[in-house]
C-alpha cells in the first residue's frame, strides 16, 4: 500500500473537509442550494473515499456496519416521528406550523424542515454506505499493477 502514500496523505486532509462541507450543505440547505439528500451523499462519499484509499476493512472500523444498519432505520423514524409529533400537537401529519403556532416568522416550519432533513441525511448516508459495503466486501482486492 505504500505506493499510494500521496493519495493517502492528500485524502487524509480532504476527508474532514468533505464531511464538514456535507454538514454545511445540510444546515445551510434552508438558505442556499442543498439539503439532506445532497449532504447525505457527500458524507457517504467521504467514507467511500476513505474505503477506496485505506481499504474497506479500515472504513468498517471507522463506520461500523451496525451503525449503517441503525442509521438507515433511524432516518425514516425521525422523518415519520416528525409527522407523528405534529399529529400529537393537534395538527395534520407533517404540518410543521404546530411546532410553534404563535410564531410570526414561521419558526415551526424551520424546526420541522430541520428535523425532516436530518432524517433524510441519516437514511441517505446509511443507505449509500450499506450499498457500498455490500458490494465492496465482495470485491477482490485491486492488484497494484491495475491502478
Amino acid at each position, binding site marked *: 500500500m505504500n505506493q499510494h502514500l500521496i493519495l493517502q496523505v492528500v485524502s487524509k486532509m480532504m476527508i474532514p473537509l468533505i464531511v464538514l462541507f456535507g454538514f454545511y450543505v445540510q444546515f445551510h440547505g434552508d438558505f442556499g442550494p442543498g439539503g439532506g439528500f445532497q449532504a447525505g451523499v457527500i458524507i457517504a462519499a467521504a467514507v467511500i473515499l476513505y474505503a477506496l484509499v485505506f481499504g474497506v476493512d479500515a472504513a468498517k472500523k471507522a463506520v461500523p456496519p451496525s451503525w449503517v444498519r441503525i442509521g438507515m432505520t433511524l432516518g425514516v423514524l425521525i422523518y415519520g416521528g416528525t409527522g407523528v409529533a405534529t399529529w400529537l400537537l393537534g395538527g395534520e401529519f407533517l404540518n410543521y406550523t404546530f411546532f410553534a403556532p404563535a410564531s410570526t416568522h414561521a419558526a415551526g416550519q424551520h424546526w*420541522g424542515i430541520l428535523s425532516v432533513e436530518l432524517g433524510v441525511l441519516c437514511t441517505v448516508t446509511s443507505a449509500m454506505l450499506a450499498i457500498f459495503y455490500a458490494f465492496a466486501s465482495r470485491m477482490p482486492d485491486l492488484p497494484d499493477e491495475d491502478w
Partner: protein
Amino acid sequence: MVHSLPVLIMELGFMAMLVVVAFAILRMRSLFAIVMLQGVYSLLSAAWFVSLDAVDVAFTEAAVGAGISTVLMLGAMLLTDRDARIISTKQKLGPLIVVIIAGLAMFYALGDMPAFGDAHSPANAGVGADYIAATRNEVFLPNVVTAVLASFRGYDTFGETVVIFMAGLGVVLLLGLNGNAGKWNAKPNGQCIAARNKPPMKIASVPKPQKPKPKRQVAVKKKVAVKKKVAKRKPAKPKAGGTS
C-alpha cells in the same frame, strides 16, 4: 429569461462536450475508461444545470452521478469483466432502429415544449407560482426548493426517503452488509474466483503464447481443463441464499 451571449456560448459548449463524451463512451471497449467517462458526463451535465440556474439539481447530479454511481459502477466492473464484449453489426441493428424512432418522436414532441424560462408554461403558471408566493409569506425561507421539498411536498419526500431506505434494505437483505464476507465468488474475465480459494490476484492475465498446434486440439484441451477446475471448486461454492 433571456440568456446573455457568453452564457449561451457556454451552454452550447457544454452540450457539445456532452455529445462528444457520449460518442467516446459508445466507441470505447475498456469498461474502466467507460465508467470514468460516465463520471465526466455527469460532471459536465452538472455544470450545464448550473448555467441553467438549476443549482439544486446540479448539486445532486454532481454528488450522485459523478460521485457515488461512479464508485458503484467501478465495483460492478470489478466483479465482472474489464472489457466490453464485441457485438456484431447485425445485433446492433435492432437497437439502432429503436433509438432512431425514439429520437424522431422526441424531435416531434419538441414543438410542444414551452420556451426556456417561459412564465406561462404549465410548470411555472399553476401551482409553482402559488408555492413561490406562499414560501415568502408562510415558510420564510430564502430557498424555495427546500421549502417545496420539505414542507409543501413533505409527503413526497417522506416517500422518497422510504424508497432509499428500501433500496438499502433490499441490498442488505440480498447481499448482507459484509457482502457475505468469506462466502462470495466472482467471475472476472470468465475466471471463477471465490473468497476461500482466492488466487494471487492476476485478473488481467495475458494468455501465454502457445506453440503453433492444430487449433482444434487446443480447444479440446482447454475445455477439459475448465471442466476439471469446475469439478475441483464445486465443494467450495457458497450455499445459495446465504446471508450474513
